[in-house]
């Protein structure tokens, strides 16, 4: 069993790139003047000749990445999610997605947990944007070990991938020896029959906490970690819907177009069941410490727990 570490997934990303570099000489890393923050600085230090700082020009960075990929490179074009997925959306769609080029678009500091920088930098729309691009694989790993596995899977996958990274340090939990990352496959972290909680990214560890509390109160909740939001693990979700009848989705992202909508889309034809979506409710964030913001927006274990109890008609009086 690997050790438990508390680390932001952006750090795990920077480490993974550096570790993979020898085996994959085609990998090159691009950044837009945020290498210290996105942790591509690890790679820059180890492989300066394979690191390209594009300056504060994300649209061009994505286009340059497309050109590099057209010549056989595997570029990781990295910036804050707001800019790589947001500002450069059309470059991702037309220069990377449409020609199916082997570019990995990386969005760091995603979600509300950017914290103090405030609404302009808190991207809660990146998953929605990237999901709409035909053929785009969308990955949102939950901890250190999952991020490392996801980076490796992204390198091996020949085609466009969006990879979401967080700023905040998270406790690792995917440290068991039998942990296996498979692109497009969800992971059942806890079996249960009363309802299913489907979580992604930063919210998985919080959901894990919630199901433990629920179990103590006699509620048998299933927990599924969806690290690949596209293509989503439809089979696993339909099975959970059939067996538990109720689903709660949890994401640090807008409830519009993210994991919640992806889950609803997967279930609607085969097994429509009631789904409650926990996420950012069609609103902007604001400045503040990340942990406080997560609490304010209901992105914590307590809110997941309350929502589950209410869903089951077991509100605390």
């Amino acid at each position, binding site marked *: 069993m690997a050790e438990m570490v508390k680390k932001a997934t952006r750090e795990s990303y920077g480490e993974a790139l550096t570790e993979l570099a020898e085996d994959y000489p085609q990998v090159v890393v691009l950044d837009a003047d945020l290498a210290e923050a996105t942790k591509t600085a690890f790679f820059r230090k180890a492989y300066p000749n394979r690191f390209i700082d*594009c*300056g504060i020009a994300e649209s*061009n960075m994505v*286009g*340059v990445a497309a050109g590099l990929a*057209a010549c056989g490179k595997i570029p990781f074009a990295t910036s804050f999610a707001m800019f790589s997925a947001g500002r450069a959306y059309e*470059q991702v769609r*037309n*220069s990377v997605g449409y*020609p199916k080029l082997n570019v990995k678009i990386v969005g760091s500091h995603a979600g509300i947990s950017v914290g103090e920088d405030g609404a302009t930098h808190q991207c809660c729309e990146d998953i929605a944007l990237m999901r709409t691009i035909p053929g785009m694989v969308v990955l949102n790993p939950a901890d250190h070990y999952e991020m490392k596995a996801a980076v490796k899977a992204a390198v091996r996958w020949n085609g466009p991938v969006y990879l979401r990274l967080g700023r905040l340090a998270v406790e690792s939990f995917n440290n068991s020896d039998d942990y296996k990352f498979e692109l497009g496959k969800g992971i059942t972290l806890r079996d249960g029959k009363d309802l299913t909680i489907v979580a992604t990214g930063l919210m998985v560890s919080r959901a894990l906490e919630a199901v433990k509390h629920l179990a103590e109160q006699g509620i048998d909740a299933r927990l599924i970690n969806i690290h690949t939001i596209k293509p989503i693990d439809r089979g696993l979700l339909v099975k959970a819907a059939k067996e538990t009848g109720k689903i709660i989705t949890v994401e640090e992202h807008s409830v519009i177009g993210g994991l919640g909508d992806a889950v609803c889309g997967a279930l609607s034809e085969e097994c429509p069941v009631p789904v409650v979506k926990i996420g950012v409710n069609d609103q902007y964030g604001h400045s503040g410490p990340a942990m406080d913001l997560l609490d304010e927006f209901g992105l914590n274990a307590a809110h997941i727990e309350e929502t589950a109890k209410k869903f089951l008609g077991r509100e605390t009086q």
Partner: protein
Amino acid sequence: MDAKENRQLQILACKVRMGAIEGVYRAKSGHPGGSLSAADLLTYLYFREMRVNPEHPKAENRDRFVLSKGHGAPGLYATLALKGYFPMAELKKLRHIGAMLQGHPDMKGTPGVDMSTGSLGQGFSAACGMALAGKMDRMEYRVYTLLGDGEIEEGEIWEAAMFAGHHHLDNLCAIVDSNGLQIDGPVAQVAGPAPIDEKFRAFGFDVQIIDGHDFGAMEKAMKHAKSVKDQPCAIIAQTVKGKGVSYMENQVSWHGKAPNDEQYAVAMQDLNRTLSELEAE
């Protein structure tokens, strides 16, 4: 270049124009004006300048071309067909359902197209990436990209220009098809990117201004471009929009409109006349 070679290129360019008109006419839509202004430049690149082989369209060491002004696709397609990348008959199916030739270049579906383009400003960035890859891998190939003078109003163009200058991409040659017109009117009246040459120079480019319909001038400019070290090159090619078809020349309205049956006949008459004159010489 001698007179005979020059005439041969003119003949090819005339055939490129005919192919472009044919495509747009059959598609009942498309962009004739900018295809015709670029026809001589495209002809020169594919028949004189670039080291490419239609038998091996994906060869690693080939020179690359990115049509950043992707709406000039009918001109590019006619050039590629004449070069032998695909049958001329494809031109008649331009923009048709199920056809290979899309409204804007699609590298997945069309042999010889090195980058998918159409959304303005994006091709230039991709060309920079290709040139950088060449540098990283110590490859000998060169990258050519054709920009529109309207297109350079896009901010991404200047992000890319800054990138090319910063990375000393001397294997990159950007050609501006400066025909002076865009959809809403003369470029100078719509947004005014002038002075284009000084802008590129300020971004670290070696800049030349040439007549974009003069093959001798292109030969000289390309020769110079290849001799420049540590700097990317920009060639501002002064062109006439709609060149070669009497009623389309310098007309804003022929930016993105297909000729009707009568207009098609007149265009073909114009071009056939030019062709027979050239062939008679």
